[in-house]
């Protein structure tokens, strides 16, 4: 009995020892998808986040940074579990990441309830920009409506009179298709929502689109689905017959698989790899040096910005993480060099930013790259900011 008590006591002391010897560090939790075919997106985000930390010397305001990456497995309930683990068990100071809008919506309550600052690096659920906005939640990406609204404006500029919308049936898919309808002045002749993420066969929807005979088809299919959609689009004989306009369907992670299928298909994005500011040039060049054979995508660019945003806020409060009010004001100032040039937040902590038209071309080496062709709209604010009660 005594020996057991002695052993237990020693074990406890040994366990307590290292904790007392630990230096104060900044803990950031990062929730993304690191398994399955969409792991390529999660890896791009992690690589970019790591690159940003390398650029800062892995220290923010003199304190070492520790990042805990968690895999949401593309499932909202797992994302919520991992978020709760990071907040309650790992006691992170900041939380970032989140690719998918449904994972974000499931995970946001524990974050806000625990008053942990969250910087969303991709998901743009419209509710988070509107009625669910919070002083603790910031986004370095966009609100789901913004990008398709920009595409709608571009289609107006191109004189498109009728469009058929196809997208996946989840929070972001519905937001995207609604976004096009907001700004597009022509007629929406049909809309199809597909089962997400299981359905990869779009034959029924493509057949319907063909039968409706629109001037153009707008599509939103992130990740692997985008590759399959473009392949089936060509197989259905629609390539060259009905022009395709996209958002988040063609990016540096899916382009290597899409290749020729993506040539000449325009997309709207708030960041393209050739934006001519210094921060972006450094980001893209160093990314390609550190990860040869890979190019950063907009997911990565947003994660890079997220890391720098957190760093700017902590530096502004001189490492004082307990003064939440001061941290919030520092976040809102967004005093950092973003890879998309000028960066400022709206009242709902969603960026007010430019949207560019990107096109796919073959570069001199024969690689497929994305090129900025035009600026569709400048300093565009999202449509939900009036629903957010914050000033």
């Amino acid at each position, binding site marked *: 009995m005594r020996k057991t008590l002695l052993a237990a006591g020693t074990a406890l002391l040994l366990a307590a020892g290292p904790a007392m010897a630990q230096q104060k560090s900044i803990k950031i939790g990062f929730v993304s998808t690191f*398994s*399955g*075919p969409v*792991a*390529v997106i999660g890896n791009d985000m992690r690589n970019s986040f790591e690159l940003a930390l390398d650029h800062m010397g892995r220290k923010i305001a003199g304190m070492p940074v520790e990042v805990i990456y968690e895999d949401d497995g593309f499932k909202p309930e797992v994302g919520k579990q991992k978020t709760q683990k990071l907040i309650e068990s790992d006691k992170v100071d900041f939380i970032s990441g989140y690719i998918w809008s449904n994972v974000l919506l499931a995970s946001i309550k524990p974050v806000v309830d625990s008053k942990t600052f969250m910087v969303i690096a991709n998901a743009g659920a419209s509710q988070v920009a509107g009625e669910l906005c919070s002083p603790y939640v910031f986004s370095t990406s966009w609100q789901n409506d913004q990008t398709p609204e920009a595409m709608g404006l571009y289609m107006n500029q191109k004189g498109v009179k009728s469009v058929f919308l196809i997208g996946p*049936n989840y929070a972001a898919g*519905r937001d995207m298709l609604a976004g096009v309808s907001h700004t597009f002045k022509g007629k929406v002749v049909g*809309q*199809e*929502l*597909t*089962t997400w993420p*299981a*359905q*990869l*066969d779009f*034959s*029924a929807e493509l*057949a*319907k689109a*063909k*039968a409706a005979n629109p001037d153009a088809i707008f599509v939103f299919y992130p990740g*692997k689905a985008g*590759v*399959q959609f473009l*392949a*089936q689009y*060509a*197989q*259905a*004989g629609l390539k060259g017959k009905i022009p395709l306009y996209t958002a988040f369907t063609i990016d540096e992670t899916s382009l290597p*698989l899409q*290749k020729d299928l993506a040539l000449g298909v325009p997309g709207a994005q708030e960041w393209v790899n050739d934006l001519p500011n210094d921060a972006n040039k450094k980001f893209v060049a160093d990314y390609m040096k550190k990860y040869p054979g890979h190019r950063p995508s907009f997911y990565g660019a947003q994660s890079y910005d997220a890391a720098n945003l957190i760093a700017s806020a902590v530096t502004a409060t001189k490492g004082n993480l307990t003064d939440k009010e001061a941290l919030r004001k520092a976040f809102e100032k967004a005093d950092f060099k973003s890879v998309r040039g000028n960066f400022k937040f709206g009242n709902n902590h969603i960026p007010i930013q430019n949207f560019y038209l990107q096109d796919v071309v073959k570069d001199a080496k024969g690689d497929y790259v994305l090129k900025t062709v035009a600026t569709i709209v400048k300093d565009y604010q999202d449509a939900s900011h009036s629903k957010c009660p914050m000033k």
Partner: protein
Amino acid sequence: MTLFIEQCLNGLQFGLLLFLLAAGLTLVFGIMDLVNLAHGSLYMIGAYFAATFAAWTDSFVLGAVLALLATLVVGMAVEMIAMRRLYGRDHLDHVLGTFGLILFFDEAVRLIWGPEGLSLPLPSWLNTAVTILPGMQYSAYRLSIIVVSLAVAVFLYVLVMRTRIGMLIRAGASNREMVGALGVNIKLLYTLVFGLGAALAGLAGLMQAPILTVQIGMGENILIVAFVITVIGGIGSVRGAFIAALLVGFVDTLGRSYLPDLLRLVLSPNAASTAAPALASMLIYLLMAIVLVVRPEGLFPASAK
């Protein structure tokens, strides 16, 4: 009208692909009384092999043929190494054992090919649309899937109905013990049947790869549908699997196409567009439930019991 014909063709194509997968499953279940959850893994292996071999040989057709042979070999190996231990045991033992095989195959694929999946591009002569009726175009590749699947269905019919081996297969599905008692080399029969099922699954996997996907876990979703078809068609019956697969293919494709419009007639457009995709994906299970109520042994049961 062209839309309806096109959707029917899509349904036919989907149904035939499902038939290839379900035929192997129902044969294995019927003759060997083996619940093989790893059938979906053989489907996945077929697709991965096809993507790899097509990249090596730069030819889609050659890659497909090699992948088919490779999947046949893998199937027979799995039967000899793993399945032999499961014969005669409780179905739950089969489920546990083959579920373990699923995990094994998923991890093996992840170790060999990485977690991100592959793609299988089509040669340009298949990547176009052909004019099948005046004013109507259809994907050449999907047409070729229909043609190949129908050819395989005819081959299976001839095999099962007109050859000695087919007679043994039908006898085994009807009464396994009697076949063993009559002195037939049951071990060899089992290996061949399992190999055949594996080859069919691999063919289905490699044929859908250019349209759909080559990724880890791709077999699991479609395996459920294959089991649904086996239940609807009747266990052990290839004819049942054929009819049931076509039925499921049509119901699913036509349901997904026309249900949203039907719902919009009775519900508000917003409610219709949220309810329709969910309901459409439930249709095949509703069909299975109806068949189970009306005719629990399936539409064309093979065994006399």
